[in-house]
């Protein structure tokens, strides 16, 4: 069988390795989707397991808005604070940070992370479909969320899923 083991972030790498290695030892072809590379543990994946890290490029949305609405105004006010208008400018700067720059930065940050996640979900879904697994092991809640991206494909292929690998789940081999 072809088995995809998916555990992006928030899951013990040692446990992913154990799950993937067990599947490989049982004679299955295995692909593992994990978060960032782990130089210490990744070499423990058994030979033959195809390892896919999260290689989505970092996204930084709103570069111009960050410059013109956060960086430049805050830097300008910081410079003015050094002169005789220290107190009123300090107050204005604190007010501006609370009302404009922090909320804007947070919103742009959230949007950036969401875009990264969407891109990663899209990339994983594409790779899963291309790899054509018979069975998918979803090891954490992030993997369950990612599965939404390739659920129609799973349904159309009658592929099966489980939430742990401890030998092929009963009934997963049809």
């Amino acid at each position, binding site marked *: 069988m072809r088995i995809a083991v998916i555990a992006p972030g928030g899951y013990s790498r040692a*446990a992913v390795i154990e799950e993937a290695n067990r599947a490989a030892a049982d004679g299955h072809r295995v692909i593992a989707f994990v978060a960032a590379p782990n130089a210490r543990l990744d070499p423990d994946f058994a030979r033959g397991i195809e390892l896919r890290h999260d290689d989505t490029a970092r996204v930084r949305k709103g570069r111009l808005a960050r410059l013109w609405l956060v960086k430049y105004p805050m830097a300008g006010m910081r410079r003015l604070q050094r002169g005789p208008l220290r107190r009123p400018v300090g107050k204005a700067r604190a007010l501006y940070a609370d009302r404009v720059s922090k909320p804007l930065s947070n919103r742009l940050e959230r949007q950036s992370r969401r875009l990264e996640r969407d891109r990663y979900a899209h990339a994983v879904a594409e790779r899963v479909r291309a790899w054509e697994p018979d069975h998918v092991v979803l090891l954490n*809640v992030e993997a*369950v969320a990612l599965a939404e991206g390739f659920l129609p494909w*799973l349904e159309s292929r*009658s592929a099966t899923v*489980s*939430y742990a690998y401890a030998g092929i789940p009963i*009934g997963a081999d049809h």
Partner: protein
Amino acid sequence: MTVTGERSVAIITPWYPTPRVPFGGAFVQELVKAVAPRCDSVTVYHCDLWGLPKDLERAEVARRSQRRLQPLARTAVRGVAGATVHYVPALLPNGSDWETQARAHAEWLTASLRGEPIPAPVVHAHVGIRGAYAALENARPDAKVYVTEHASFLDQVLAEPGARDLYDEVIDRATRFFAVGRNLVDQLGAVYPHHRAKLEIVANPIDFGAARREPPRRIRRWITIGALTPRKRIDYLLRAFAECRADDPDLRLTIVGRGNQEPELRALATELGLDDAVVWRGAVDPADIPAVLAGHDLFVHASRHETFGVVVVEALAAGVPALVSRCGGPEELLEGIEADAGAMYDVDESPAALVKAYRELTRRVEAGLDLDRAREHLRRRYSREAVADHHERIWFGPSEGAPQ
């Protein structure tokens, strides 16, 4: 998912070993090993809490995806002793109150069963608020549902009004309700006096297969086993050990377990000058615990609170004397055999309590403890056979010729 036979049993538990938490709920797995040969079939439903992302949109995606995945999900794998294990993630927000957790466990188990009831006529749930509510909501109408409470956090559950009411309902609906120690029964009896008569005690099974060949004559190789968390008071143990070692530099201490407190504890050991005397073993497979214990002379327990104290029985089963804090469960375990098994000391902030008990025990060990008597006393109550007999009587009634 058809189950035939009146001796088919379903076990519902929030704790069971997984690759991520390999020794979590090992006592439930031990119970399965003990009882499975006496049943037509044993099916374990392990409802594991999976915390949803904080991002509400993402959390909803996960919930939606999980619901749609159910028809494709194959959760059953082969477990120990021929049992079948269903691994059922229960998705809910981190930090949810106990009532929400209980209802979510029940809801996700229902989804996993695709609306069908648990087929077994006998259902045994572990942990009153999560396992038991999920069992009661998903058992067949004619099934007998038994519950065992183990939780050391029971006081937190009972402190929440919603959870307290739900727990009341659970005890009411259960066929019989057990706890693993007298202190848990007392705790529940105080909150639910109307259920006092229904609260019974049942033990966790312990492996009595291996023991030291000879009882120790000197107790220099100490061992402690448990999660490295504040409740286990390993910091207290390290301080007491350092004092005892000042008298006897040959003392050694093995610490088995992992936990968030490990870096802090390692730093404390260094500060106390114990680097050469302390061995950090990390987590050990429960199956290897008897052999690891048998390689030591003294088991030391410093917990602030325990509902049962499995590891105290494991130590004595391995022929190792125990020096144990009076932290709840162990007093009951060692009642009547305290002097034969080792010694107990009061939970106190000063390491002097442990040090004094150790010095007295050292003198008594040289004269010889009656560890065989203590071991035999515990074997009759906690061995796999004894606990399996008890569960068999609970589930299927007394069989002819069986001990009552």
